């Protein structure tokens, strides 16, 4: 059986602090070789029984023998992870989950819509798309609370052909559009500066829901990356489900296995 996932104790190569965000780079040649944008790794943050479970983090970079994640300190697990130093080992399972499906045609317009800590997997996706198809048809729209919370803005700018291809929004107006990133999306579609783009979105659920609604309205293909509390991360515990449409009815599918990336129209958003 060809294996697509690994558990390894990985040496930390870099661990940089940027405000409340951390950029963690570890040595993991096998995981790096297997990783696709939208997939995640499942990390042991502490060494004791409290907190007990692993934490899922999206893959932000997978190059040569290195994997990087970009995370925000949200609670005790990420706080413990943040204490680890270069040279320390971190127990990683990955790559996990079903990532983004790349566009089949290089001629289609592509728009990436990110919010907050949803940016890292989109950054990985953007660089993968750029490698395959170039940046010509790529537009990124990234929202954050404030200018300082724009974590991958420089990278997105680097992959944009002009200023119109990388658009920022902040809740407080401290940078780019003052308001929601979905305002920008809607405006661009309306003004037809974007025509029938393929949408990739990752960010807070309300943002994803708004993007999904816009996609539906304009009959656009849209992939969203969702979050859920996870235990196993590998599809065994059925703990991380979301509701999706299933024929006339609904069913629960696993964010860690069938997702975290789903077609927006599959997802039952109402609840």
């Amino acid at each position, binding site marked *: 059986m060809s294996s697509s996932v690994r558990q390894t104790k990985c040496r930390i190569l870099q661990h940089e602090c940027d405000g409340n965000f951390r950029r963690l780079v570890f040595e993991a040649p096998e995981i790096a070789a297997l990783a696709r944008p939208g997939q995640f790794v499942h990390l042991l943050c502490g060494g004791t029984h409290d907190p007990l479970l692993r934490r899922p983090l999206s893959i932000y970079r997978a190059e040569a023998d290195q994997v990087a994640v970009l995370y925000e300190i949200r609670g005790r697990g990420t706080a413990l992870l943040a204490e680890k130093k270069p040279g320390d080992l971190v127990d990683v399972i990955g790559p996990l989950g079903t990532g983004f499906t790349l566009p089949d045609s290089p001629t289609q317009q592509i728009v990436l819509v990110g919010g907050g800590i949803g940016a890292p997997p989109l950054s990985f996706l953007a660089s993968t798309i750029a490698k395959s198809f170039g940046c010509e048809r790529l537009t990124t729209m990234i929202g954050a609370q404030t200018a300082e919370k724009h974590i991958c803005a420089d990278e997105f700018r680097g992959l944009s052909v002009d200023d119109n291809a990388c658009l920022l929004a902040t809740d407080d107006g401290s940078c780019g559009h003052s308001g929601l990133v979905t305002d920008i999306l809607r405006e661009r579609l309306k003004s037809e500066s974007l025509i029938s783009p393929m949408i990739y979105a990752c960010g807070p659920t309300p943002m994803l829901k708004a993007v999904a609604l816009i996609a539906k309205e304009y009959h656009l293909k849209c992939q969203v990356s969702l979050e859920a509390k996870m235990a196993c991360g590998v599809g065994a515990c059925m703990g991380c489900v979301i*509701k999706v449409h299933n024929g006339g009815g609904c069913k629960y599918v696993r964010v860690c296995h069938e997702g975290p990336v789903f077609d927006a129209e599959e997802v039952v958003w109402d609840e």
Partner: protein
Amino acid sequence: MNRLTTDICGIQMKNPVMVASGTFGFGKEYAELIDLNLLGAIVTKGTSLVQWDGNPPERICETPAGMLNAIGLQNDGVDSLINDKIPWLQSAAADTPVIVNVVGKTLDEYAEVARRLDGVPGVAGLEINISCPNVKHGGIAFGTDPSMCAEVVRAVRKATSLPLIPKLSPNVTDITAMARICVDCGADALSLINTLLGTAIDIKTRKFRLANITGGLSGPAVKPVALRMVWQVASAVDVPVIGMGGIMNADDALEFLLAGASAVQVGTANFVNPQSAIEIAQGIDDYLVTCGVEHVDEIIGTVQS
């Protein structure tokens, strides 16, 4: 690892370390991470007569040294098990016995699942889940009410000739009473414990953290309670006892063996470290070597008061 061979009511295992129901899917999910053939046995996710949807999310929640789950036994039903999952396991993990965890909402459902599994190649035994706290219709009531418990075990006993292993609920005043009832009604072995009923509240939203309100507590937090119950039950009945609840490493597993468990199951630990069960079997072997014990059987139930 000849020292570790274990026979639980006719189920031959290469070691006494099984993976617990609901924490290991149907084996496939972990097949790329560990060698399934090194496991003592695999206990499947709870399997019902027809497909069950399970509970709405949130289904899990971390707690100090533990976790709550309210999966609600989402599964594809027994036919999918027989047609897909068991054949897959037979080819991928031929050396490892498979025990099917059986659930139902009525006596008839339990019996019918057992009947369909009777004689299915690759099914070594049935673990009867009378104790899942997350199913409203049967589940908890079967496992905490002595007469209903008796009825389930009797009904399943009639429906199958497979080894029968009721799985006891810890949410009772006297677990030995439930154990004795199960044995009297034909149980060949007993599994314990299932999860402790608990809950958690998000003080920001002022809502329960689980959509189902309550869920089952598992993990290291419950180990002292589980070990006490295993010791009580092993002292009270003559059938083999399979102990579980918070086993994270070989030391934990050895506590259960010393307390009287003939085998152990590893549950939540799989989530933390998928290698747990295999490392535990190895650790038990190391302990036996260090102590100069020839076979694991010799230490079972040997704790001194």
